[in-house]
């Protein structure tokens, strides 16, 4: 397994089945964001492309193969890529196939992932056409296993089918991902904002949304946003 799960894959262009480029982002300089800073060491002009862990090839080891084989049997083309990293398995799936896939994941005897513990969004602005990733962490209490599904959607078409018909517990999670990233879950029973105020404009967890970029309003005074105070950057 160690060959397929290198501790760091930086600078290595991973072999991809199709679709999802592995670029996590680019960093410059020693501290990651040195463009425009005053440091003179020369490190500030070094750009580095960061890649996610590369795709794994079977056998994945242990029960991973069992689940992967069964998924391949049920949905020959839905899983585009499998990554085994740090003892966890991630299936990259086509977003169109997601509703049928999760239903089988829950109901099939060999799979039995009864619980969708967490839905999380991640924004990768560098991955053109796959800017938004939605990550589902599933738990099988029957078999005591965890797997992860990951699907992507482009920023121009931020639609992912909802999994709430199969997992009602994903209701609040999908509302949160909509609230924070602006991913629209088609078929969700009531996709409204959940953490931000109802009339908020924008999706705060996107990478292009500034930290503290909103002025704090008091009666009769305005405190400027963090990134505009005294020339500081967050």
């Amino acid at each position, binding site marked *: 397994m160690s060959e397929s799960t290198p501790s760091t894959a930086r600078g290595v262009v991973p072999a991809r089945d199709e679709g999802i480029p592995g670029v996590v982002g680019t960093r410059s300089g020693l501290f990651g964001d040195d463009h425009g800073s005053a440091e003179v060491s020369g490190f500030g002009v070094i750009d580095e492309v960061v890649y996610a862990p590369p795709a794994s090839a079977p056998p994945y080891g242990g029960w991973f193969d069992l689940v992967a084989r069964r998924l391949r049997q049920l949905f020959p083309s839905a899983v585009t890529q499998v990554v085994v990293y740090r003892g966890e398995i991630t299936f990259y799936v086509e977003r169109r196939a997601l509703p049928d896939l999760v239903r089988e994941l829950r109901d099939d005897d060999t799979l039995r992932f009864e619980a969708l513990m967490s839905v999380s969004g*991640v924004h990768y602005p560098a991955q053109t056409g796959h800017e938004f990733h939605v990550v589902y962490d599933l738990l099988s209490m029957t078999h005591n296993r965890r797997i992860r599904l990951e699907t992507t959607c482009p920023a121009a078409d931020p639609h992912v089918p909802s999994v709430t018909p199969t997992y009602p517990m994903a209701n609040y999670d999908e509302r949160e991902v909509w609230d924070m990233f602006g991913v629209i879950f088609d078929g969700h029973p009531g996709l409204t904002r959940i953490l931000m105020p109802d009339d908020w404009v924008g999706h705060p*967890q996107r990478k292009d949304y500034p930290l503290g970029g909103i002025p704090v309003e008091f009666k009769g005074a305005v*405190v400027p946003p963090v990134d505009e105070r005294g020339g500081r950057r967050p």
Partner: protein
Amino acid sequence: MTQDTDPTPLDEEPRDDVGTPEDAPDMIAPDAAPGEEPEESPDEADTDDVFVPDPSVFAEDGDPDGATSYLASGADWDDIVAEQAERTDSVIVVNMGPTHPSTHGVMRLVLEMDGETVLSLRPGIGYLHTGIEKQMEYRTWVQGSPLISRCNYVASTANEAVYCLAVDKLLGITDDIPERANVLRVMAMEVNRIASHLIAIGSGALELGATSVTMVCLQEREHCLEFTDSYCGLRMNHGYIRPGGVASDLPSDGLDRLRELVRLLESNLPAIAEFTLEQPIIKLRMEHVGTLDLAQCMALGATGPTLRATGYGWDLRKMQPYCGYDTYDFDVCIDTGMDSFARWKIRLAEMDESVKILKQCIEKLERTIGQPFVIDDPRIGPAATMTVGADGQGASNEHVKLLMGQSMEALIRHFKKVTAGFTVPPGQVYTAVEAPGGEIGCHLVSDGGLKPYRVHLRDPGFHHAQTMPMMCEGGMLSDVIVALGSIDPVMGGVDR
């Protein structure tokens, strides 16, 4: 009373301090003074950066589509009465919160009531949203620990633990954590579990009007917090668990304090069970209230005591052990009542199990005195060796001597570690631990940099909030509070 004859001192004092506008700290925009023209016109500076809301996206009064929405803006009482009189049914809408004292933080419940019966309930959350997940993307990996601690501030050690376990896993050092560090982590988590359960029980009883239970619980919690204070300097929001281990070892009298804490808890905790479990009022208020069976728990993602109250003994400490929980002898507490009272009983029993674990921690801590409490990796461990001097905790004399007099490289490394921290290989992991409320999970993504790329906290209270309609609809208004108390949501964790 007029301003002229009786100016309040509060009005007067700031006037003396206010100097010229140049003296004002830049926190307060001088531009905001009324009547003055701002130096920069907002149109020039902000055309590209500021969102201009599109008014067409909001519904307006009279728009045909969409269900009735209830906003918190309020209205004239006469209008509300008139609107109610126009309805032909007897349904009234009750807005409970968002600052109702008997909800666990700032939570809002919108209830449609027919008399005393709840027809529908919709929780409104987000009032305590502070963007902790976003903030963590701008802080180093180590700074994330005290920050995530502030999510669920009642059970904060579980937040730190799940985050630090995720960082450990991404670093690939999970198996290299020293034994003593794991024991200290378990000790911190279990003390915190007792403190959190005492709040759940105490505030749950307070919501029923039983103030003496609350007082007893708060008193016992005080012992737990004092102990926490003694080893990390903070009663709440500890930041004690760090990537690679814990922040500091026990102080010299730490083991004695732990023994004393265990002695106190062992003698006092049973009393809470004694005077509540057979108490007829508590039983009448809690039994068959807020019922959730196994299928409902599974559908809505309920975990922890709520799930175990259905008779299903799912406890991550047993099922997917972390921090060496598989080396401790304890039982998973279950009940088959499926109601608020069953959850109450489980919490009481779990505190006894936690005390049992603490006693085993004492043995292990005695055995590992002097062993490292943080991973032996100069990249990840603390920047300095710390001691407690007469004036508080600080870098030890030996460390200062090394930096200032002996090793330039050590000084550079110290500086780099304090300012930049360490990098974590790119990738993503999900870790889960058994928090007092249920499964708390952390989905952590790294881009190989000095800061997390994305942190997502799966808080049990967030999922428990969506079980509220299932537990309360069809029941009495007074039972809503009991049901809410029984799932113990802490809004700091729910809203993050």
